[in-house]
């Protein structure tokens, strides 16, 4: 179980593979569900050049740990990973990585789905998009988007 923020580029598949290798649960997990959120070059605006992610560091740490704890209380997870980018990101860069390991598939799939929804609506991160016209704060997340 681990959660952290990163202020530099992350390699989602490598992070997940490393987390999987770091825990001695081989032969126990039958299911790994993951979600990666990446930066697109368009949103309500087109031609987005970069994005800056601000957060509330002390609250973020506390919130991500609480999220993992709650997920592990609700589902029989063997392992869990949450990594979120902050700072400057570019189109194609990963913004968030979530992975859940469990014996059976329903726990990993449902926990992963729940984690990204919770994180989207409550974790204290804010995105500012930059186009050639300057910066614009993203106003809010919408359902499933």
């Amino acid at each position: 179980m681990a959660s952290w923020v990163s202020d530099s580029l992350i390699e989602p598949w490598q992070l997940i593979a490393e987390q999987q290798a770091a825990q001695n649960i081989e032969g126990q997990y039958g299911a790994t569900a993951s979600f990666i959120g990446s930066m697109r070059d368009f949103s309500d605006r087109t031609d987005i050049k970069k994005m800056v992610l601000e957060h509330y560091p002390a609250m973020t740490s506390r919130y991500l740990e609480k999220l993992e704890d709650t997920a592990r209380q609700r589902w029989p997870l063997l392992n869990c990973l949450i990594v979120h980018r902050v700072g400057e990101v570019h189109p194609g860069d990963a913004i968030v990585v979530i992975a859940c390991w469990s014996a059976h598939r329903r726990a990993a799939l449902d926990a992963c789905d729940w984690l990204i929804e919770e994180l989207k609506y409550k974790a204290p991160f804010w995105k500012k998009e930059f186009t050639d016209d300057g910066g614009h704060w993203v106003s809010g997340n919408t359902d499933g988007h």
Partner: protein
Amino acid sequence: MLSSNFKLAETINQMSIQVKFFASLREKLGQSDMELTAATTAQDAWNQATQNKPVPDNLLVAINLDYAKLDTPLQDGDEVAFFPPVTGG
């Protein structure tokens, strides 16, 4: 004796409340961190810190890193944060 008691009372009444603003709110208000010496609730802290600016729609409040409400009472040493809807993930 009198003067020493007076100082003690002053010390007791003096609180330390940390106030933080994030993202668009931080930029609009032009301030990110400040300290108040007294505040009864999160709303009171907002009023003092913004010179009574109206509370924006969808304002989020956290006290000591947990979500809270504007009418949540504050205690000495509390950190109260104000921010717009979150947009991570």
